[in-house]
């Protein structure tokens, strides 16, 4: 089958058996790859209401058809599972080089179930699968583990997706890491991997994936290059030079970035604090070299070297915007060395920087309002903006070296429950901490954060990232007639994520080209109408997993603070409250779904097609 290896690997870690199954044409055509292909598989393979960390729980590591087949900006793979954080569907994706290497090793996806008696890693070498002992790697950091595995296999280029100590401890904010500083970070992916005592998936191979029309892919790539030199040249230039962190200063001034655990405003930071953590500023001090993911002409990454100060680092990934904001503005911290060191710690120990920084912010607010004593903090005087205290608490979490460090390692909700305090300072969507784009500035994000089947993500579709929040207030805070634009954005981003494109393709690829890439890769010949139904199906598939778990609209929650209840009293977001229920009503109305339950009606499922099993489960048809 063009565009795919056509093989799915199912691994049982309990009895160390493997089964290779065909990726059928129907599966590939209807669900493409990435999150929705994963949801389709888990829907069948994982019993309803399985605990995310139980042996019966499945973990999928899944490519998209663009991985390793040539399309520019097509290098992202996806990790899927049930989330131990939200209790519902979870997917998280990552760039670097791992996705293409997974495919060249012979499989479009690998699914793990069961629990190994002792720590293992799985090695796929040109289709051949072997279980390797990882007892000696358990407890090691991600960097130590990568070095050890490459040495063991005598191959510096093997692809490795792995967990650090965070995943071994089943932390709710444990990530799966690859290429040293790339992360499929969100929703507790690393905890699911750790629960299976699986330290790493290691891949090597040179298996060629056939495509339908290689010349067409070359032509589409040329079109992309011309596009990037043309209408979007200046945006490409910004991201290419300075990456996502280029806009940190803008975000702290505009109200986009979270400030002081989402309770502060731009006035809480000085101009110098806002400017110094922008990557243009940090590049001048630390930049060592550029980093680009596979097949990416933008190349938004960089490697830093921190030569001076208390936390010297020979090599560390440049902080992404999310990192700078979570360890910067969220904590009222304007110190670049501590931000870089915390970023490094998270990568080493395998933590999601978004949930980690948010957890520090929650702990800070609790401490600074007197909810925790200094003794409970393990002697760490975690005052707002204190860089030494921020680093000390980060180390305590990563090394689980204090009681507070161990508890905070479970992220905000678990910590609030443990101490039975600080619930009023939790800011999350269905339990997962919010990324650094404020819904009070870009209201559409509130709908996405709360009601996307994978809650709390800025990389899921919706109005937020289409409108970017710069519209006049009378337009963006009207909450009327948003449904169509919201749904169009969802359809587009579903295809982006499932195909394996990067989200920066929202500007980096010419409009409408993604479906043309899929048609050049595969034999599916999607029409424009097919594309609409495809996007709807991909979205509905993730939603269907949650429905099967018994989740309905009322089960998806969002914290009051992030939607302006009560509103902020100063700054760019002063007096703003988001009518998120109206935004959701608009969205579900556009879909034709039931407003109370978010159930898709029979007619919708029939029209979209390819979801007979959902139809059967919901309506017995």
């Amino acid at each position, binding site marked *: 089958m063009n565009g795919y290896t056509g093989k799915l690997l199912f691994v049982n870690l309990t009895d160390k058996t493997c089964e290779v199954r065909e990726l059928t044409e129907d599966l590939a055509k209807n669900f493409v790859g990435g999150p929705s292909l994963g949801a389709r598989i888990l829907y069948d393979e994982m019993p309803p209401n399985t605990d995310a960390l139980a042996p019966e729980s499945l973990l999928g590591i899944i490519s998209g058809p663009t991985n390793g087949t040539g399309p520019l900006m097509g290098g992202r793979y996806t990790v899927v599972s049930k989330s131990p954080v939200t209790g519902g569907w979870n997917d998280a994706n990552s760039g670097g080089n791992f996705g293409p290497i997974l495919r060249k090793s012979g499989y479009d996806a690998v699914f793990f179930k069961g629990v190994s008696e002792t720590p293992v890693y799985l090695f796929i070498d040109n289709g051949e699968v072997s279980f390797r002992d990882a007892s000696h790697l358990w407890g090691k950091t991600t960097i130590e583990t990568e070095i050890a595995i490459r040495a063991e296999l005598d191959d510096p280029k093997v692809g490795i997706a792995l967990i650090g100590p965070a995943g071994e401890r089943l932390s709710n904010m444990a990530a799966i890491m690859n290429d040293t500083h790339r992360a499929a970070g969100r929703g507790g992916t690393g905890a699911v991997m750790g629960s299976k005592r699986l330290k790493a998936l290691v891949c090597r191979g040179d298996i060629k994936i056939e495509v339908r029309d290689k010349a067409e892919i070359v032509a589409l790539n040329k079109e992309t290059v011309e596009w990037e030199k043309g209408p979007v040249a200046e945006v490409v230039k910004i991201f290419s030079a300075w990456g996502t962190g280029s806009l940190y200063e803008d975000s702290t001034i*505009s109200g986009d970035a979270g400030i002081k655990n989402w309770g502060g405003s731009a006035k809480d930071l000085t101009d110098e604090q806002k400017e110094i953590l922008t990557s243009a500023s940090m590049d001048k001090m630390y930049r060592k070299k550029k980093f680009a993911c596979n097949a990416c002409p933008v190349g938004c990454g960089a490697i830093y070297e921190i030569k001076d100060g208390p936390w010297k680092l020979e090599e560390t990934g440049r902080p992404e915007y*999310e990192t700078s904001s979570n360890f910067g503005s969220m904590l009222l911290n304007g110190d670049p060395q501590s931000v870089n060191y915390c970023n490094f710690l998270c990568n080493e120990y395998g933590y999601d920087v978004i949930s980690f920084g948010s957890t520090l912010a929650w702990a800070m607010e609790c401490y600074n309002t007197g909810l925790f004593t200094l003794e409970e903090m393990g002697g760490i005087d975690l005052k707002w903006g204190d860089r030494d205290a921020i680093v000390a608490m980060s180390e305590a979490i990563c090394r689980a070296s204090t009681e507070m460090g161990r508890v905070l390692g479970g992220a905000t909700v678990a910590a609030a429950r443990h101490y039975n305090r600080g619930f009023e300072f939790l800011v999350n969507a269905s339990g997962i901490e919010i990324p650094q784009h404020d819904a009070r500035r870009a209201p559409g994000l509130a709908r996405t954060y709360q009601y996307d089947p994978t809650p709390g993500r800025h990389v899921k579709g919706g109005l937020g990232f289409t409108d970017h929040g710069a519209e006049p207030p009378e337009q963006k805070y009207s909450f009327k007639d948003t449904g169509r634009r919201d749904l169009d954005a969802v359809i587009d981003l579903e295809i982006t994520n499932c195909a394996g494109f990067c989200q920066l393709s929202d500007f980096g690829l010419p409009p409408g080209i993604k479906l043309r890439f899929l048609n050049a890769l595969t034999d599916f010949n999607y029409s424009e109408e097919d594309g609409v139904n495809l996007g709807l199906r991909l979205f509905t598939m993730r939603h269907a997993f949650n429905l099967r778990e018994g989740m309905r609209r009322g089960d998806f929650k969002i914290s009051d603070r992030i939607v302006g209840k009560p509103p902020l009293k100063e700054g*760019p977001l002063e007096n703003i409250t988001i009518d998120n229920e109206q935004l959701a009503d608009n969205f579900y109305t556009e879909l034709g779904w039931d407003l109370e339950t978010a159930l898709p009606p029979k007619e919708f499922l029939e029209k979209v097609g390819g979801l007979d099993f959902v139809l059967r489960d919901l309506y017995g048809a």
Partner: protein
Amino acid sequence: MKVWVKFVCKDLTGGLANGEYSVPDGATVLDVIRAAEKSCGVTLPPDRDKAFQYILNDKAAQGYTPVPDGAKLYVLHARLGG
């Protein structure tokens, strides 16, 4: 009257300097940008304004928003993300 401006999106503003600019009473945000262009001898490309967003005295503003004397204006990238 005088308005203090910081051009945060330096890559889009081609050498417009941060600092204080004089504008007549009743001037708008866009008038301030034009004053900066004149003062710095820079002409921004047509429609460049569409790539900006503005924060005026800590509040979101539009190009047409009137500017009070002594105001603090930040000129930002319209596109955020990452």
